[in-house]
């Protein structure tokens, strides 16, 4: 197990170096620069442009900037945002709880609905339930998130008035010393109605964010289940006279879940990407919205720091999933 773990960790080093290069290079490959955007229609003379670029350190050779970026990373310094002039790490940590909360709820929702949907579709293969659920999953998978989000807002918030339009909690409630995890903060605040308000605000964004992962998990669960249901040991279990419920839940499902766990892990990356759009629509103050703002302002330190931190989180989750996979599937561990 230790060797397995070390082997996995060894992979992280080149991945990390690769990500620093991509994160650093990506935003610089985009045309435009922050100084020009700052000047706007007014224009900026070449002299003033050079002066401001020097002040921000952009006048030095690109490799010097890169080495400095990586060097500072080892001291935990992700640089200062060009726009807000605050440390990138502080900005990230302030906004990250909102994204985690939304992402966790979305992945949980996707899993709790996706797996049963896929399993039932497999058991009832070819039935109307299978056709409808898998058809719906395909539609969900192809859904443009921005359009889907707006549609839900117009229907549930605008017309039916069941849910709030956007934000994390009613403006009445305010927890300045909170953790940033609104559900938790609302719960421990003891203020009546706060928790309900936080939950109501979470419904639409988490449904929107969960849509694609839910579709993927459902389809993966169905095909994994179908495969397992055809295995000899399932036939044996049936032949032993076990009830269909026991055959499915004990013998088939546990084995079918192994590839599904990997799929769920991979969905964390999808959720991070989806968060960018979901947070923008729902004015959700997380890192997705922050990244969009930073990219449009060509805020190099925020974009490269943010990308790196997001990539780090995805890598950690994937590592945990890999380890978990090793735990639940001994063949991997021993191979």
């Amino acid at each position, binding site marked *: 197990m230790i060797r397995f773990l070390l082997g996995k960790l060894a992979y992280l080093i080149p991945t990390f170096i690769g990500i620093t290069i991509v994160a650093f290079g990506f935003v610089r490959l985009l045309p435009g620069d922050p100084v*020009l955007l700052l000047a706007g229609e007014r224009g900026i*003379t070449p002299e003033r442009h050079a002066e401001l670029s020097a002040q921000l350190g952009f006048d030095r050779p690109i490799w010097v900037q890169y080495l400095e970026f990586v060097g500072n990373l080892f001291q935990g310094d992700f640089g200062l945002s060009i726009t807000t002039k605050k440390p990138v790490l502080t900005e990230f940590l302030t906004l990250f709880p909102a994204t985690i909360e939304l992402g966790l709820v979305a992945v949980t929702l996707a899993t709790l609905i996706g797996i049963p949907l896929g399993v039932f579709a497999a058991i009832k293969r070819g039935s109307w339930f299978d056709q409808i659920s898998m058809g719906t999953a395909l539609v969900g998978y192809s859904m443009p998130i921005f359009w889907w989000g707006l549609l839900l*807002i117009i229907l549930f918030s605008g017309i039916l008035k069941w849910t709030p*339009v956007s*934000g994390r909690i009613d403006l009445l409630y305010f927890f300045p010393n909170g953790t940033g995890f609104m559900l938790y903060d609302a719960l421990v605040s003891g203020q009546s109605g706060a928790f309900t308000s936080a939950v109501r605000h979470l419904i639409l964004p988490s449904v929107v964010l969960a849509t694609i992962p839910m579709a993927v998990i459902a389809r993966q669960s169905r095909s994994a289940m179908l495969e397992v249901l055809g295995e000899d040991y399932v036939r044996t279990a049936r032949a032993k006279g076990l009830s269909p419920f026991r055959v499915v839940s004990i013998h088939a499902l546990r084995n079918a879940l192994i590839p599904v766990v990997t799929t769920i892990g991979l969905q964390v990356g999808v959720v991070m990407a989806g968060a960018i759009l979901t947070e923008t629509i729902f*004015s959700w103050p997380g890192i997705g919205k922050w990244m969009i703002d930073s990219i449009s302002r060509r805020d190099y330190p925020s974009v490269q720091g943010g990308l790196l931190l997001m990539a780090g989180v995805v890598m950690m989750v994937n590592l945990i999933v890999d380890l978990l996979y090793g735990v639940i599937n001994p063949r991997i561990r021993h191979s």
Partner: protein
Amino acid sequence: MKFAHLLAASSLAVMAAAGANAKTLVYCSEGSPEGFDPAPYTAGTTFDASGKTVYNRLVEFDRGTTNVVPGLAESYEVAADGLEYTFKLRPGVKFHTTSFFTPTRDLNADDVIFSFMRQGDPAHPWHQYVPGISYEYYAGMEMPTVIKEIRKVDDLTVKFVLTRPEAPFLANLAMSFASILSKEYADKLEAEGRMADMNNVPVGTGPFKFVAYQKDAVIRYQAHEDYWAGREKIDDLVFAITTDPAVRMQKLQAGECHIMSYPAPADIEALKADPNLQVMEQPGLNVAYLAYNTTIAPFDKPEVRRALNMAMNKQAIVDAVFQGTGQMAKNPIPPTMWSYNDAVEDVPFDPEGAKKLLEEAGVSGLSMEVWAMPVQRPYMPNARRTAELIQEDFSKVGVDVSIVSYEWGEYLKKSTEPGRQGAVILGWTGDNGDPDNFLAVLLGCAATGDGGANRAQWCNKEFDDLIQKAKVTSDPAERTRLYEEAQLVFKRENPWATLAHSTVFMPMSKKVSGYVMDPLGTHNFTGVDIAE
């Protein structure tokens, strides 16, 4: 961060003590402020959240106009030669008392000098209080070359000595970058090694005091109890940051906010039709234009530029692109600005006449580029569509147009290059209501060349002499006359096709009263009330 939270916590206790009956106005704003010190920034969103709420200036724009009126200075005197401005400060002006700062003295001359010197003096300890900070408006309004010295005459009197007469100087001082900060607060932050907090937890003299900011989500303010111009009618002001205009509209309709900024033009009708809402509107202090490069043949000939302008159906552009939310422009300054010359006759829409004029100028088979910016701006909802309409119009007079676009930053840069091919769609929103802010910035000789805002590269001596003279003339009537004449020269020479002035809309709940739209485009909540 923790500190700011702690401070905010105690402020909240005060807010809570105000009781459940507190009048709270919720404004759905379009974005997050970059910071709370207005001087280092150029975005209107930042000024709304800091300059207009937390701070005051020596002089202010009178609500709803671009007239300059006394602010923190109760009176001012301008020397006959226009080189000295003496400001008499209002006595007894209180800074905000917050959970994180308790002022021990009222506003005085030291605060004024501090607020300007930190921007103008590179050796000032606050000049770079955050690494990489710069003062773009201070530089853009030419303050470093205009201000020679700022002198404290006594505790309540400050004298600005200028290097040259500068008629727009007073209007410049009413802009957000010229906000007056508390030197006492700055000293405290410096002593505690927390200088960066000047940009995080601001203290000013303005109508609202800062309570807390949850990044990208909510900004909370409270009415300043001791405000020198009288306490506001509302108790709490909340900015609910909502970047998408469609979502802002939904929030307004659902009653989650009382007032919103920048509705999408396509939503105006629906907003007007909502029985719970009122939609205020006003012509924006802006202009959208197409700038020819007047240094490149055949656009160096005024008759060619006139011919192209004659070929352009501007009404069709206003109808299709602005969808009724704009008006055709004939002058480079908007009609709401003083000195607008209504006697100027616009170039008529006359494709046949255009063809003839082009023939006379010896131009045939002309191919040109029209640049369309890639972003939506308050003065131009859809540059691409505008360029397509121009392409269609020009093709009817035998001019072949190819449409070009670049990423926004590149567009801004490339469009200033002197050797640029083609005509550029761009526009401008006024900073201070002074015609100089349009005519000199966009059409003056000093603004030509690489990096300048004169995208037509148009340097006309007659025009430039008029605006230069107007800039150093203090008599408003004389300035008006000079600018009116300059507009005639502009129309004769046609360095641009003046396209349109857009209309600005402000939808709000019918419960809101007393809101006055600012022609300069900021959002100002002084004097606003809300029915229970």
